[in-house]
């Protein structure tokens, strides 16, 4: 527990004691040295000479503490790490002796010789073998031996196996060994001991990214863990399940996950719902299945669904044009019984507002159409408005929905007018504002009403974060974006007469980044062999000759592209400045992008042209390509 000054003063003494013949003192000195190094890393060099013979110890106590000392030194300094790599064969030998040696009563724990030492050696091997092919190869055999020979009936054996698995996954082991490790984890999952299952799930979560296929094999066991009683195990099983969902197993997995959503604790429901939405979006086999899944989530966990899910869902529904009638019918039926789940009611109100005409005309193809009159629809929307359970936001949705129905319904317009005017004096400022505006629509701008309340067009899906739109409401411009990454690509300025629910807009206004109302359209500069590069533009407010281009490189093939380098050249009248890229790896399947910023100075306002050179490694071979970009939009350089 010494302070750093104390450590500095006593370090010399400790170093001397490391060399004494008394093993009792030596082991204590070694751990003191560990503490000194932790407090004052610069003193590490001092202990280097003493470490020469540390591994030749016979005494297990000293051996153990020495391994701890070596581990500490290697963790802290890459030079030490390189220096100690040569000890790998010795460590392997010691470990081998421990496993092969007969019963030694002194160090035995349930039939295993000195498990503490074994675990520490494995940990040191892990650090030494990381990123080093030769060391990793030297360890392969012993790791396989430990993995197969260790007794698994007691916790001790499992502790050693756990450490072995961690080591195998961290070093550059051969694939056979990795599969062995994952199988061990799979076996752990079947163990009755909760602790072991917990540890297995945690480790699998870490490896699922790199060894996806191997983990898939244990999918059914993992899904079974969803039904476990322990909260931490359930959480890990849930996270792992989401990581394992893919196009092939999505139906089965979703069934299990929905069942889990039904029965799990409230603290999980929000995460689970969000996870289900994401997975459904990525892998939905059909639109109908997708809508059904969403409905199921909304009805079972409607009150736990995250707020930002609502706009995403709305956008999804808008885009599945042929399912509108089916969707609105199902949503209507859902809230008929119970309108307390806010997210559900919000989505339902929005849909009824948009597609109410489909509802009353009984047009549904997918299932039996129900007979609904306009009054019944207005009844339910009004109940939502009046109900104490409805949040302010939900009421906003309901009021706007009622308003929209004024252009879609034919016989109940008067009733709608009455409702809207009542809320003109509502205490809730938001509702009041809307009601007053809608009233004005009825009175002074009645000719604009149909155009303003037109059906929403299919929204452009910009990024996986959600849509971004620009709206005009009665002359006021509200710019709204959901984007926190660099500016998204391709947003056309919205049609001036398109209106969308203001409630939806206020939900969109989250990020500080806003788009210019007259956005410069972005372009795809390059698209070949699965590599796509998009350019998005921004003009500098301070210097009109500067155009800031943000490139986004994405990879639609099934293998990552590494060591990606983007180079650009422009005609002599321009000046170019290339800032550093976000990374040099483009992950496969469009799961991530590299972004890089280019600043172009164009004092003579000439047409922008650029030649680009791309180099990267893909599928084991080096690729290179040259291209010319000529399709710059005029707004980017004029």
């Amino acid at each position, binding site marked *: *527990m010494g*302070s750093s000054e104390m450590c500095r003063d006593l370090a010399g003494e400790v170093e001397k004691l490391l060399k004494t013949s008394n093993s*009792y003192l030596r*082991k*204590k000195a070694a*751990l*003191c040295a*560990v*503490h000194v190094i932790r407090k004052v890393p610069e003193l590490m060099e001092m202990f280097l000479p003493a470490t020469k013979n540390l591994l030749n110890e016979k005494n*297990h*106590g000293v051996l*153990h*503490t020495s391994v*701890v000392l070596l581990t500490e030194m290697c963790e802290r300094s890459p030079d030490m790490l390189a220096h100690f790599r040569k000890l790998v064969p010795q460590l392997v030998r010691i470990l081998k002796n421990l496993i092969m040696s007969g019963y030694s009563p*002194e*160090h035995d*724990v349930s039939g295993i010789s*000195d*498990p*503490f*030492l074994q*675990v520490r050696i494995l*940990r040191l091997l892990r650090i030494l073998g990381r990123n080093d092919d030769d060391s990793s190869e030297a360890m392969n055999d012993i790791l396989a031996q430990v993995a197969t020979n260790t007794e698994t009936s007691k*916790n*001790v054996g*499992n*502790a*050693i196996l*756990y*450490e072995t698995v*961690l080591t195998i996954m961290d070093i550059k082991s051969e694939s056979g060994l990795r599969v062995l490790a994952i199988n061990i984890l799979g076996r752990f999952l079947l163990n009755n001991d*909760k*602790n*072991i*299952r*917990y*540890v297995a799930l945690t480790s699998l979560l870490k490896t699922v990214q790199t060894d996806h296929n191997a983990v898939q094999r244990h999918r059914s066991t993992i899904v079974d863990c969803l039904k476990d*009683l*322990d*909260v*931490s*195990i359930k959480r890990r099983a849930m996270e792992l399940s989401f990581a394992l969902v893919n196009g092939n197993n999505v139906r089965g997995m979703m069934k299990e996950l929905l069942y889990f959503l039904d029965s799990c604790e409230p603290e999980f429901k929000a995460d689970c719902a969000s996870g289900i939405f994401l997975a459904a979006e990525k892998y939905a086999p059909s639109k109908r299945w997708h809508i059904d899944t969403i409905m199921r989530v909304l009805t079972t966990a409607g009150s736990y669904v995250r707020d930002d899910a609502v706009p995403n869902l709305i956008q999804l529904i808008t885009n599945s044009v042929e399912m509108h009638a089916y969707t609105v019918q199902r949503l209507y039926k859902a809230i008929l019984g119970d309108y307390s789940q806010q997210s559900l009611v919000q989505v339902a109100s929005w849909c009824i507002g948009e597609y109410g005409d489909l509802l009353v005309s009984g047009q549904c193809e997918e299932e039996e159409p129900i007979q609904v009159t306009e009054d019944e629809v207005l009844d339910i929307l009004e109940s939502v408005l009046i109900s104490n359970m409805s949040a302010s936001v939900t009421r906003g949705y309901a009021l706007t929905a009622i308003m929209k129905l004024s252009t879609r319904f034919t016989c109940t317009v008067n009733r709608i007018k009455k409702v809207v005017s009542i809320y003109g004096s509502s205490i809730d400022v938001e509702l009041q504002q809307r009601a007053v505006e809608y009233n004005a629509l009825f009175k002074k701008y009645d000719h604009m009403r149909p155009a303003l309340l037109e059906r929403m067009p299919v929204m452009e899906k910009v990024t996986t974060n959600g849509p971004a739109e620009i709206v005009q409401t009665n002359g006021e411009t509200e710019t709204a974006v959901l984007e926190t990454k660099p500016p998204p690509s391709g947003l056309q300025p919205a049609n001036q007469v398109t209106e969308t629910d203001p409630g939806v807009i206020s939900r969109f206004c989250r990020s500080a980044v806003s788009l210019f109302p007259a956005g410069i359209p972005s372009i795809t500069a390059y698209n070949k062999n699965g590599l796509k590069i998009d350019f998005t533009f921004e003009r500098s407010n301070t210097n009109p000759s500067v155009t800031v281009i943000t490139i986004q490189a994405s990879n639609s093939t099934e293998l990552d592209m590494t060591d990606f380098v983007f180079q650009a050249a422009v005609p002599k009248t321009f000046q170019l400045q290339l800032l550093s890229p976000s990374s040099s790896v483009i992950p496969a399947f469009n799961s991530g992008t590299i972004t890089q910023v280019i600043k172009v100075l164009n004092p003579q306002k000439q047409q922008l042209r650029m030649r680009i050179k791309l180099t990267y490694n893909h599928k084991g071979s080096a690729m290179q390509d040259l291209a010319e970009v000529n399709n710059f939009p005029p707004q980017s350089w004029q």
Partner: protein
Amino acid sequence: MQFMLLFSRQGKLRLQKWYVPLSDKEKKKITRELVQTVLARKPKMCSFLEWRDLKIVYKRYASLYFCCAIEDQDNELITLEIIHRYVELLDKYFGSVCELDIIFNFEKAYFILDEFLLGGEVQETSKKNVLKAIEQADLLQEVKTHRIKYETIVFSL
């Protein structure tokens, strides 16, 4: 290991060993929070939990909870073994140890712990050696008290 706590089912702290420098106030706060969290766990739940940025490994032996806080890269399962080894040492020394032994002989309990763990790491993996070291220390103490008694007798003569 960052620290080890021993507490009873009623939440009374029997032993605390800290391997990181913390102020008294912080120690008390951590102890209070952790005791509450661990005691609230149901018997069927697993022995590991995440708390702040540490992993907590706990095991219940009769009426005592043994609770260790380890770092992210430490092996939880081997920590369970460390706890078990410590209990075995106590058992060997006191002979069928119970909570009362630890309450009345806490300095011995600390002594045994200090011979087994140092600076948060295991220093001796052999049970025999740890117990031998304790025996030697006990002998020294005995000699000292014997000496003092002898000298007082001589003095009074």
